[in-house]
């Protein structure tokens, strides 16, 4: 059980008492993690106990997308030329990385939605719902990394020393994705337009990101890509994995650093917003 202590509820904003806010947050960290992990296990077991293909579902979507583009490119319907690497390997890694980011975006909203029924009934660290969503994303990524290893063997791609750092790139993609997801969560709990919007934006954002084609060097697309935070993370991670040069390394670190800050900020907003949301979602 939690430790005995004094809790005070008032109408004023939690920000008026930053010390209390921070102390509460730090104090509930262990339960947050433990419960988040437990809920992740619950969702995972619940999902796969009623499934034959089980964990393979987490690699099926990127594989299907890859196969389409490998086919289109093979038939010369589209003509995408990637120097220094076979196109199938390029596109499989690309879609897996994109999928990692996209699952990161959906993770927090998904986690909170799966625990929605408890929110209006029980007082528990609500961040654990966010964590349960992110833990699921991490679990799925581990499977995807296994798939990349298999693909490396199949294409006889020798891992470079930088491949290890490429694995860190996954962490950055998850972080960026879940930061965006977390910042959208409060609004998504109130309006379901947000979740519908996320699906659509992600569907076409994949084509504005160098996933199935290499980074354009000039033109409108290249200019647009400068504003796409996923692009530097994705290309850098892919290049690290296959041992290619990484010209965007500094942007990679900037984006990752900003994600960390924004993620913490998102947690704060989530914590402050939750009582107001619970009041409105009922049970």
């Amino acid at each position, binding site marked *: *059980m*939690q*430790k*005995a*202590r*004094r*809790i*005070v*509820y*008032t*109408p*004023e*904003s*939690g*920000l*008026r008492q930053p010390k209390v806010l921070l102390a509460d947050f730090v104090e509930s960290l262990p*339960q947050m993690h*433990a*419960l988040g992990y*437990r*809920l992740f296990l*619950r*969702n995972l*077991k*619940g999902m796969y*106990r*009623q499934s034959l293909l089980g964990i393979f579902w987490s690699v099926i979507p990127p594989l299907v997308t890859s196969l389409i583009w490998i086919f289109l490119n093979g038939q010369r319907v589209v003509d995408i030329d990637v120097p220094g690497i076979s196109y199938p390997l390029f596109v499989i890694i690309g879609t897996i990385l994109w999928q990692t980011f996209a699952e990161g975006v959906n993770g927090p909203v998904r986690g909170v939605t799966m*625990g929605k*029924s*408890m*929110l*209006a*009934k*029980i*007082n*528990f660290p609500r961040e654990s719902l966010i964590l349960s969503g992110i833990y699921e994303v991490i679990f799925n990524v581990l499977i995807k990394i296994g798939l990349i290893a298999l693909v490396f063997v199949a294409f006889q791609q020798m891992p470079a020393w930088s491949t290890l750092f490429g694995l860190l790139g996954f962490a950055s993609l998850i972080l960026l994705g879940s930061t965006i997801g977390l910042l959208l969560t*409060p*609004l998504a709990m*109130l*309006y379901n337009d947000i979740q519908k919007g996320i699906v659509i934006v992600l569907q076409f954002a994949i084509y504005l990101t160098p996933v199935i084609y290499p980074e354009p060097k000039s033109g409108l697309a290249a200019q647009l890509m400068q504003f796409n935070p996923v692009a530097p993370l994705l290309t850098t991670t892919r290049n690290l994995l296959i041992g290619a040069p990484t010209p965007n390394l500094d942007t990679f670190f900037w984006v990752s650093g900003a994600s960390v800050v924004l993620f913490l900020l998102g947690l704060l*907003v989530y914590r*402050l*917003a939750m*009582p*107001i*949301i*619970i*009041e*409105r979602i009922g049970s």
Partner: protein
Amino acid sequence: MKEAKEQQTLQPTQVPKHNGQADEDEVLVRVENLSKKFCRDLKRSLWYGVQDISGEVFGRSKKDTLRKDEFWAVKDVSFELRRGECLGLIGHNGAGKSTLLKMLNGLIKPDQGRIEMNGRVGALIELGAGFNPVLTGRENVYINGQILGFTKKEIDEKYDAIVDFAEIPDFMEAPVQSYSSGMKVRLGFAIAAQMEPDILIIDEVLAVGDISFKLKCFNVIDRLIEKCCVIFVSHSMQQISRLCSHALMLGKGNIKFLGEDVSQAIDIYYTDIKDQNGAFAFERKSGEVRILDTHINSSRENLKLVKRLGDLMFGFQLEISAELEEAVIAVTIYDNEQRPVGICFSDKKIKEFNSIVYNGATLIVNGSVTLSRINLSKGVYSITLIISESESSKPVLRVNDIRKFQVTSVRDVWPTLELEGDWK
């Protein structure tokens, strides 16, 4: 009476009262001028939500004026609770009980006022929260336990006790979706019963389950009450009078009663029941019988007060088809939870009452039945009037709730009958 077994004392358990000289620390719950507003319109409520979130995030305090479509769900509620006290929270649907509980539990923020909770808070608001139906009972014990704030290690230690309490050892490895609803509740309560809170919040969870389970729940709550303070919401006045040392009656968000006199609060609760007399439940043929007038002790108030061991006279005036002159009348008394308490058959036929022939084909009947020295216990009762051709035949007419009356008594007891005895 299904709860009759549990009532071992005549009077509600009197928890030792505070002697007034202890220090401030003993106050576990302190609520000051608490208010909460809600919005009737969902769309607008969501939009206010967006505004409130931005206010919260930018550190602005909440405004305490009502915006369009808003109303006070709880208004200006203040009370204090000390260890060993049990506060019964009563009120009709929509009185603000659940809103108050949610604020006390920290689920939603107050709009005005202040809540101070000193100690660990345990809430029995929903049993088995977070259960996943596909997973086994064992797995769900860990999920629900951690949601309630136990660590994994604590659940490891308490696991056997939980299984013992739930009494379903053979089903712990089976998926919860194969459980009966009673088994789910048992398991949920077994986990919650392991809590050791200083402040316990209970919301209607005892309404479910079979008798033996309810008994067990009450034993747990009795054990917990000694060490903590309890806020208890129920629509069962018997449970309230059995458990509570204090009562808070809410009506439309405002305090209608607050104090140690639980039985007075219960009286107010019953008096508040709206007038819904005379629901025709059954009529064989329209127009055969018409009720012209009814009264209790010559009074036509909505809720006539009758003293226990006083006489109750139910009078009626009917217009009835002359073909039914051989018919008989009966009245049934129901208690406030719609349980039949007793029935009284008339020993006269319609024609033997004081009646006059009207228009040749109908009779106007003036009659009454006196039930002397009624030994019903304190509470609200209703009378159902039944007219049938003979005692064993189907009724010609049945009117539920034709009159309500309230029995007043010095004692507040669970059983419906407070019998008179000759003790020697």
